[in-house]
């Protein structure tokens, strides 16, 4: 049987300690060990971006990281964006207003990709937005309404 490793990490501000197999993917750890199923898995090979989460504020693909690599780090998932479903994060609100989601499966990955991008570049051009999103696949929207959501979003403090 594989050796187990202890990990300690923070997810959406909560501290977790678990003992896990080294091969356990971060996406599976978040979804199935912690029950944070808002992070979705679309390709398991780092191509589609659906599983994007923040690690220490940087967008990473949780399907190609092992959970043990997150040991000692701070993770933010889509569940950490809004206080509750009645009070959305401005980016989530912008997605809703612009109809930037249809089936919603890729949406958490888009949101988590955009959070650090908009921190760095709060008023991006359309070309910059399209470039920033070019590593995330959406099969429903044709991207236009996602781009419009980002063009219209205003993230305050």
């Amino acid at each position, binding site marked *: 049987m594989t050796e187990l490793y202890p990990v300690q990490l923070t997810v959406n501000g909560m501290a977790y300690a678990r003992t896990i197999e080294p091969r356990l993917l971060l996406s599976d750890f978040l979804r199935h060990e912690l029950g944070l199923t808002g992070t979705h898995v679309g390709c398991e090979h780092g191509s589609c971006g659906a599983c994007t989460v923040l690690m220490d504020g940087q967008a990473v693909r949780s399907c190609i990281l092992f959970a043990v690599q997150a040991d000692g780090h701070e993770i933010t998932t889509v569940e950490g964006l809004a206080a509750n479903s009645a009070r959305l994060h401005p980016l989530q609100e912008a997605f809703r207003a612009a*109809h930037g989601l249809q089936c919603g499966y890729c949406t958490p990955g888009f949101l988590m990709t955009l959070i650090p991008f908009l921190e760095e570049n709060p008023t991006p051009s359309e070309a910059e937005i399209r470039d920033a*999103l070019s590593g995330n696949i959406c099969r429903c929207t*044709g991207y236009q309404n*996602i781009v419009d959501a980002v063009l219209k979003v205003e993230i305050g403090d």
Partner: protein
Amino acid sequence: MATRYFGQPIKRNEDPRLLTGQATFTDDVHLPEMLHVAFYRSPYAHARIRAVHTEAARAMPGVVAVYTADDLGAYWQPGPLLVPPPPVKEIIFNPRMQVPLARDKVRFVGEPVAVVVAENRYLAEDAAEQIHLDVEVLPAVVDLEQALTPAAALVHDDLDQNLNAHVIQRKGDYTRARQQADIIIQRKLRYDRGTAAALENRGIVAHWEARNQQMTIWDTTQAPIPIRNGLAGMLGLSEKQVRVIAPFIGGGFGPKIMMFYQEEVLLPWISMRLNRPVKWIEDRQENFYATTQERGQVHWAEMALTRDGKILGVKDVFLHDAGAYAPYGLTVALNSQCTLLGQYDVAHYYSEFTSVFTTKPIVTPYRGAGRQHGVFVMERLLDIAAKELDIDRVEMRRRNLIPPDKFPYSNEIIYQDFAPLTYDSGNYLPALARAVEMIDYERFLREEQPRLRAAGKHVGLGIVTYVEGTGIGPYEGAKVTVEASGRVSVATGIGTQGQGHFTSFAQIVADQLGVTPEQVRLVTGDTAEFYWGAGTFASRGAVVAGNAIHAAALAVRRKILKKASDELEVDEEDLELVDGAVRVKGSPQTAIKLGDLAVRANPMRGAVKPGTEPGLEATDYFGPERGATASGVHAMIVEVDPETMMIEILRYVVVHDCGAVINPMILEGQIHGGVAQGIGNAFYEQLVFDEHGQLLNASFMDYLLPTADTVPRIETDHVETRSPLNPLGIKGAGEAGAIPVGPLFAQAIEDALHDANLEILEIPLSPSRLYELVAEAK
């Protein structure tokens, strides 16, 4: 008059849950004691099985069970034929359906051979790797045009050739039309395979509870009710013992239809056998093989015309690749056959297709579902004829459009719903004129293009038309209930995969009951909530379920008015439903809240009049006599880099007519998404099989999906020709965006590379394929 929500761009009810990660998708279902399943799939396209060695896998840690075909006993049966053959004379039809686990032969790479059940998915996959398949490898059947030759290996040994079906349909007399023609255009055209690639792969959780003899199945299906009915029969259970839930689904696009996929059939059986919940979630690589695919046709087509460009007749003979099994009947090929004539008034049509078995994944409808093939053939022939006759391509189309006074227009052949192919309504010229105006056709050709060409740029324009048969029967139903809280609940049987049903259907109900869409809670895709129905496919959800919901809401409205009339002692005609209450017109203080009325309609004491039904609730159904025909025009301007053959789409215009529009925001989203898939299909996506039937690009690294930097901004406009076939006047819109993009690309790229003397007769293209075509044309 109450606020009218129908036609308004209402923000979606479902979005907050989806945006915050609180929507349940199938893989989010977690049950105590749940086991996990992995499949061992054939690595060969075609082979005779000598033995399946599972001993090593059974001995692996955490493995609970390993099953092969031999373990299934009487449960091993080919899947059901989902769509019977159409009532066409002299049809040949050899149905062959997929089996739960391959027994004697494997017929495509990825076909399930054995299934491993283990304590977690990692262990299940470890064990699956230890399974060994002993086979005699047989020649693969890959090339469509070789599949019927005597040298081809037989995919199904009991057939004397790889013939799935042969169908001829006729309108008028093409031979006569041909004799009268001034010009005949003949071409061979190809359309190759692609995959839907919904971002959520398939998945199933099956939970048999022996104590209360109840089976619950979470399934990424577009059609939970047929799946419930079918699985109940297979498992020997009553339909009431089986509950199928299609929760939030991450894109459907066709392949998640009521397939009775091997995994779908096996998981419930395993759960009953082990008396534990079991889960299988498809991974992306499996999705490339094990989920059904589409396209793969070769057409030999000809068009007979007069000198002034009037189409006299069309003849089309084509081969259709069914894949290894053909559970979905002839829907895709019939759609190609029945969509080909498009918006054009063609008196004589001869169409003959042969559907063949190959050793490739199963073909079933994917967004467009064969319609794009027909449109590709027709639009290409028109372009070529226009060139030959030196007629402007828009004028060429204009001369042949069905005039508005000819509707309903009969094409005299049988459609996929087995009703005669009759377009219910349409008005094609205004949409074409609008697209010409939006893309600035005349000015582009007269000024812009010469200027760009002089500057050394290769910029071309494309403009094509299409029709989309939508909203086919048989029927859907809905139950609408006013609850004591004043909120309204609606249940319908179809599944939902992102189309915005929670909102558009709520808008329909809100208008009838005088509430807001936010006060309407919709349940779809749960067989415990609604018993009857077919499913979400063929752009039918809004048309068929939408009208059923409308009918049920009207029935509840009548009950509300009657009850309120009794309670308030006012004539029904003097009442109105506004702001969640029934009130007297002109005297708004005399009112009863809907919730209060619902309580009064469900008394706990006293007596009711004979025949009184409790509550403010009604169930109703809608079934159209036949489908409603939507239509549209796409136009684009594209720049081609003649060295790399990379393209940039400079403008993309869609003018669309789907009758009355429930929610224009949602409709536009459907069009955007369809166009993006069409662009992928036309220029980026292609499933590449080698001569052994091995898929060479089964990952998102190798199969290119359009991304935010390749899909352009799409400019849309609408023409509204209401369908007379349903009370709401709506037509479906789900597939429209994807249908005409192939011929649009072909025409625009030919125009951009005008000096290359190029004739594009195949889709998909790619930069490298385009490079080859240009080299060949030199």
